[in-house]
């Protein structure tokens, strides 16, 4: 752990809960009873899958979003809106395309009413610190992604915030650029050149979290809560190939693929019966086949270590885990303690030809995916063998956000089409059995 971590509390989040009201007495819970305490002098990572509410938490801390209940205290005072002293770096950079680099960096100072001369000196300092010297008069669209995020960093640092919030700051960059930015930032931090006291970053990249943070909070999904907290004991600069580093990455994978604890299952049971309203990951059938074929072949022979597999396939945990979970849902594979194992059903699928695969997939989808089964059943029951997609979407929206519902429905449509269980007419938003051969 770094030397300059103190016990002085900067920020405290207590019993934070974020829920969006739905029809009737249903509500969509994004964050549930989250407690976070942030000390001066540390980098803390919020690690979790997409949809685990970690970005929502970051926005609550930034004062951009009001929590449904719970409190956020910043240096002893409650947060009731955007706070001076907290600055944010965005995943999408959020630069103003019509302002030059210099003007973009100055915007926070303008808002504070800083005079022109001081504004220019401070902007110059921040621009030089972050390695943007010479780009002052360039416009964002002339810059590469990495340079843009440097502008985003300079814009946040120029206000000399006590806390720097970063929302997946490197995930929109390519691997090498992201690595350079991370190292530069950590170097500045270790040399205490950054005018900030603490950094809180959201990420879905496990290695990034282990590389940069002093403390990692692992979020669980649906609803989001802090499932695990771990301290990273390594000194900067850290070596990714160090066995202890690797072990920590493996451990986090294991935590993230762990089956739900009894407490989680009880919580799930307490929810109203959802029928077919389980969110589906938007995973295409080609991707599934590809992963299953890879698993079945050498050197994995049906079993692989997730971090190793992710490294070979150049996937991030956030991309590989939903894929693994989808295979698990269809009973083609099983996830256990950071490993993925192909089932017999999965092997059968790999060795089958195209038509046979469709049949195996159709059977798996009808047995294990309630939504697909329900769609087919409704079509079968109707005299004209047609069913409107609207009713399914409405029912899904009762249990999840509209975007998630749309995503789930799209996935069910695509799977059903591949399995030749039903056809879908986009214009009329209708399922039917057109061109589907009766079994």
């Amino acid at each position, binding site marked *: 752990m770094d030397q300059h971590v103190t016990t002085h509390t900067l920020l405290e989040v207590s019993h934070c809960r974020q829920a969006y009201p739905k029809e009737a007495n249903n509500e969509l819970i994004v964050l549930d009873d989250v407690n976070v305490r942030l000390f001066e002098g540390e980098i803390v990572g919020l690690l979790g899958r997409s949809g685990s509410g970690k970005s929502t938490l970051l926005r609550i801390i*930034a004062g951009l979003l009001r929590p449904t209940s719970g409190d956020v205290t910043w240096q002893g005072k409650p947060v009731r809106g955007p706070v001076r002293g907290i600055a944010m770096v965005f995943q999408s950079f959020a630069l103003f395309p019509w302002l030059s680099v210099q003007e973009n960096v100055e915007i926070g100072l303008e808002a504070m009413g800083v005079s022109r001369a001081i504004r220019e000196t401070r902007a110059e300092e921040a621009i030089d610190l972050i390695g943007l010297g010479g780009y002052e008069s360039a416009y964002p*669209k002339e810059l590469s992604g990495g340079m843009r995020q440097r502008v985003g960093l300079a814009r946040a640092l120029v206000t000399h915030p006590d806390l720097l919030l970063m929302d997946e700051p490197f995930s929109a960059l390519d691997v090498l650029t992201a690595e350079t930015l991370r190292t530069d930032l950590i170097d500045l931090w270790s040399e205490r050149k950054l005018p900030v006291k603490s950094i809180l970053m959201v990420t879905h990249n496990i290695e990034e979290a282990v590389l940069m943070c002093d403390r990692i909070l692992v979020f669980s999904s649906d609803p989001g809560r802090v499932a695990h907290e771990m301290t990273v004991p390594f000194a900067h600069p850290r070596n990714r190939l160090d066995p202890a580093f690797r072990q920590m990455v493996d451990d986090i994978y294991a935590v993230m693929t762990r089956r739900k604890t009894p407490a989680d299952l009880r919580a799930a049971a307490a929810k109203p019966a959802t029928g077919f309203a389980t969110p589906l990951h938007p995973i295409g059938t080609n991707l599934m086949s590809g992963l299953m074929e890879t698993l079945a072949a050498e050197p994995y022979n049906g079993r692989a270590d997730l971090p190793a597999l992710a490294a070979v396939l150049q996937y991030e945990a956030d991309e590989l885990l939903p894929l693994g979970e989808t295979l698990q849902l269809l009973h083609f594979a099983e996830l256990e303690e950071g490993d993925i194992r192909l089932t017999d059903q999965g092997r059968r699928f790999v060795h089958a030809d195209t038509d046979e695969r469709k049949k195996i997939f159709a059977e798996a989808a009808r047995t294990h995916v309630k939504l697909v089964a329900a769609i087919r059943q409704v079509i079968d029951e109707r005299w004209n063998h047609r069913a409107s997609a609207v009713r399914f979407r409405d029912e899904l929206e009762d249990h999840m956000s509209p975007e998630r519902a749309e995503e789930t429905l799209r996935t069910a449509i695509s799977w059903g089409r591949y399995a030749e269980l039903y056809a879908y007419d986009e214009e009329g938003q209708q399922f039917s059995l057109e061109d589907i051969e009766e079994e």
Partner: protein
Amino acid sequence: MTSIAPPALVHGRRLPNAWDIAAILLVMGVLIGVVSVARGTLAPLAAAQATHIHLDPAYLPGYAVRTTLRMFAALFLSLIFTFLVATLAAKSRRAAIIIIPMLDILQSIPILGFLSVTVLFFVNLFPGQQLGAECAAIFAVFTGQAWNMTFSFYQSLTTEPSDLDEACRSFGLSPWQRFWRLDVPFAVPGLVWNMMLSMSGGWFFVVYAEAITVGNTTFTLPGIGSYVAVALQRRDLLAIFEAVFTMLVVILLYDQLLFRPLVAWSDKFRFETVQTVSAGEPWVLKLVRRTFILREAAGWVGDRVAVIGRLRLGRAERTFASLKAGRTSSRLGDGVFYALVIAAAGYAFWQVATFCAAHLAWSDLLTCVIDAFFTLARVLAALLISCAIWVPVGVWVGLRPKATKLVQPVAQFLAAFPANLLFPLVVAGIVAFRLLPNIWLTPLMILGTQWYILFNVVAGASALPGDLKEVAASFGLRGWLRWRRLIIPGIMPYLVTGALTATGAAWNASIVAEVASWGKTTLVAKGLGAYIAQATTAGDTSKIVLGVAVMSAFVLSFNRLVWRPLYAYASRRTNLG
């Protein structure tokens, strides 16, 4: 450039709801209110207006300047209106619920028909002065541009990227700073484009508004429009040609000095992360950017203006109160607001009802609707003919980059030229050859707006993806098959956009085009435009209101029932992903 669809296409629903009805009632109520004020004043005005218009060409430059100034005064007013009303609509959910349908309706009102009433209204405000007529002319142009600019700005405000919104809030920008740093710049490309379209239409109105006859009174304002009107009475073909030439010069200057630099400059505000190859710098912009003195001067002015935008007017939002998600709408406030709207709509309804009962009979409505169908037939015929001509030409041009570069600016230039200046020439021809006015007055309606069809089709054809063209070529798609499978689907959204603009303006133009005179000879084609024009000449305000209302209803239902579904269908089918 033309990828910006007109607001009428992208906004709102197809079926009217309660708010639409309230909006219609309110708009009609206001119109009738204006009429009631105007009616009492018709008599004592007879002697007031006697501006003399000289046909000496030496006066033309002066007239041209005055016409142009009217245009810019109206543009300035529209901009202020846009900033205020669109911001109000975007920031207040309650205001939006009534402002948006009202704008939609105002957009489809044929302002030309209403001009006589507004002239009376303004003359009444400034009795015995030229100012009233001047205001009426400016107001006419204003009503032609303000609505779609407001729509465009409102649309930008409601589609601001959420990350920039969060950046503004997290850095604590004050509302004033945010307006100039985010709201306006983000809206600039759409706003400039809409402004330019409105300006193009505006020349038509300003020329018409300079010489208007209500009953026995003719209001003339020194300008190119009134010059042509006088020339028309005296059957002076040469003077008309001189006016047309002057107008060409004015439009050319406006196009080169303002339109092109502004559109090129607005590219800077386009919200895209990739750098695109710009379509060449207009010479004026090049001049400003490359000449030392001009660049310094522009920079100095820009700095002064930017300082205004940096002022910390208003307080930064340091509370959750501004959050849309977190805002719990107060039931009481809603209740009061709804009650007010209902009361206002009810009052408007009562006004409309008493007005109709006093001045109109059912038979008037029947006449109007029958006339409207005649005009509709004429609009459709004109549209079909111009599509038949300009679609093949546009596609031919659009598929050839060199030709596109040549034709596109010319088509935009022609769209800005006020076609009503050319009417006398056509009418003189009809009179000379004794042609049937019912048929031959039709082309006048679309004379000025057909260019929208051309340049939209050109834009669509030149935007056809290269790989699709190659696929069509390599599979040997030829002739009709190539049109059916590649070209028509590709240009469809563009064609619909162009056709909507063209027909909307054609309805408006029917008021001028269905009644045309040449000296003492007057040609009349049966239709709603003629109905309104004749009511104007007779000074019969109640018939004007009825005619305008029926025409609005036709335009509105045509937009909602035909163009909007067509556009939605076309863009859904032609967008991959």
